[in-house]
C-alpha cells in the first residue's frame, strides 16, 4: 500500500452501507475491523467525514462519535489544517501480520470444515455438560466468563474464550471431546481474536457465554446445545466474511 488513500476495493468492502443501523459502536467496529485486518494500513487517510458518513449511510454526528471512539482507542489520529483529516494509526505487528496471512490463505471451504467440526464437538460437549457438570465446574465456568468480560487484550480474550469451551468439554466428563476441543481452539482461537479484527465482540461473546452457562446450570441440555450452535455459526460466518474481505483486497 503506497498511496495514502484507501483503495477502491477496500473501500467497497469496508465502507458498504451499514444495514444494522447507524449505532456509533457498529460504525466504530466496522472501521476498527478494517484496520485490524490490515485492509486500511498504518498512515492511510480515511475519506472525509461527509463522504464516509454518506457511504456508510449514517449521520455525520454518528460518524464523528465513532471516530472519537477510535481516537480514544488509539486507532485513528486527527490532524487539523491543510492536508488534515483522519489517519489510521496501526503499527505493523509481525504476529498480527502472520494471522492475517493465515486467514487469507485458509479457504472458505476449510473455514467451513473447521466450523462444522467445532459445531459437532462444542455443541455436544455443552449438551452433555448440562447433564454432568458439578458445582465446581459451574464456578470455574463463571470465573472464565468474568475473565472474558474483563479481558483487555486480544490474547487474554482468546484465552478466556478458548478455556471456557475446553472447560465445558471437561465438565462433560469426556477426555475425547476435551482433546478435540483443545486442538480446535488452538487452530481457530487466534483467528477469532485478531487484535482489532476480532470476529466476535467481547461483551457480546461474554453475554453468549453467560447464556450457555445458565443453560448448563439449569441442566437444559437442548438449550445449551442450541445456544452454542448459534454462537459457533456466528463466529465462523464472521471469519468467512473477513477472509473474503482479505482476498478481495489482495487477490
Amino acid at each position, binding site marked *: 500500500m503506497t498511496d495514502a488513500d484507501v483503495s477502491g476495493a477496500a473501500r467497497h468492502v469496508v465502507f458498504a452501507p451499514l444495514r444494522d443501523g447507524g449505532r456509533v459502536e457498529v460504525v466504530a467496529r466496522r472501521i476498527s475491523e478494517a484496520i485490524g485486518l490490515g485492509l486500511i494500513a498504518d498512515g492511510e487517510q480515511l475519506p472525509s467525514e461527509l463522504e464516509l458518513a454518506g457511504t456508510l449511510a449514517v449521520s455525520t454526528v454518528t460518524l464523528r462519535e465513532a471516530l472519537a471512539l477510535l481516537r480514544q482507542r488509539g486507532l485513528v489520529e486527527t490532524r487539523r489544517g491543510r492536508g488534515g483529516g483522519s489517519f489510521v494509526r496501526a503499527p505493523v505487528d509481525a504476529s498480527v501480520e502472520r494471522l492475517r496471512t493465515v486467514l487469507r490463505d485458509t479457504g472458505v471451504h476449510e473455514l467451513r470444515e473447521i466450523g462444522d467440526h467445532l459445531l459437532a464437538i462444542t455443541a455436544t460437549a455443552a449438551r452433555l455438560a448440562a*447433564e*454432568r*457438570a*458439578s*458445582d*465446581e465446574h459451574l464456578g470455574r465456568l463463571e470465573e472464565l466468563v468474568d475473565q472474558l468480560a474483563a479481558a483487555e487484550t486480544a*490474547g487474554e480474550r*482468546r*484465552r478466556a474464550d*478458548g*478455556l471456557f469451551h*475446553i472447560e465445558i*468439554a*471437561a465438565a462433560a*466428563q*469426556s*477426555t475425547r471431546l*476435551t*482433546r478435540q476441543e*483443545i486442538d480446535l*481452539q*488452538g487452530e481457530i*482461537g487466534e483467528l477469532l481474536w485478531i487484535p482489532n479484527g476480532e470476529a466476535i465482540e467481547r461483551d457480546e461473546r461474554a453475554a453468549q457465554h453467560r447464556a450457555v452457562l445458565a443453560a448448563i446450570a439449569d441442566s437444559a441440555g437442548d438449550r445449551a446445545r442450541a445456544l452454542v450452535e448459534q454462537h459457533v455459526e456466528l463466529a465462523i460466518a464472521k471469519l468467512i466474511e473477513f477472509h473474503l474481505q482479505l482476498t478481495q483486497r489482495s487477490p
Partner: protein
Amino acid sequence: MGRPAVTPTVEQPVQEASPYAGEAAATVEALLRETFAGTDELRGLAVDVHRRAVREGRAPTTEDLEAIRPTVLRLLSQSRVPLAGTGVIAAPGTLADRPRWLEWWRRSPSGGSPRPLAVDLDPGNIGSYEYPVAPWFDVPCRTGRRVVVGPYVDYAGTDEYILTFAAPVSGDAGFFGVAAADIRATDLERALLPVLNADGPASLIVNASGRVIASNTPATIVGSIVRPGQGERRELAHGDDWPDCTGLPWFLVRDPA
C-alpha cells in the same frame, strides 16, 4: 486386568438396610489408606529435600528433587490398584531452576515402563497445564488439607479421566508443593465393583459431589451425577475418620430412581 479388589483390613459390622455397605466402606477405607500411605512417603522425602537445600542457604533444584524418583517408581510398580501416575509437584517459584515443575512419572494404560509426564508449563499457552489452579493443588496449598478429587478430565496434563489423591508438602522450611497419586477412573471402578453386588439392586458409589465412581447398573454410569435426593445414601469413609481430607465422604447409593 483381573486384579483383585483391595482387601479390606477392617471388618465393619454389616448394616441391616444395606447388607454390603460395610464391605464397601472397608474397601474404600483400605484404598484411601493405601494411596495416602504412598503420598505420605513422598511427602516425607520431599520435605527432606526442601529442608536440606534451605539449610544450605539456597532453593532446591529439579536435580535435588530427583532424590524421590526411586520411591516414585517403586510406588508405581507395587500398588494393588494400579496408579496412573505419582510424584511431587513444586509450587510455582519454589525451585531455583524452574518456575514450575512436576517430578511425576506415569504408567501407560497399555503397560510398558514408567515415563515422566511431559506437559506444557508455559502459562501463556492455551494448552498449558495450569496446575496451580487445579483443585488437587489449590486445596492443599490454601488449606493445608489433603484432598481427593475426581473423577475428572485432567486436560492439558495427563489428558486422562482420573481421580487424584493429594497431600500438602510442608515442613519447617514452609510450603513446598503437593505429593499426589492418580488412579484411572476405569481402574478404580474395577477395584470397587466386587462390593457392588451385580445381582442385587442398582448400587453406586459416588463422590462428595454426587459424581458416580462405580456402578452396577448401565442406567447410571461412571461420570454421571446423582442428586442428593436420589436413592438411599450411606457414608463411606466417614468425615470423622478423615478430618484432614477434603472431598470425602463418598457414598454408597441404592436404587437411585
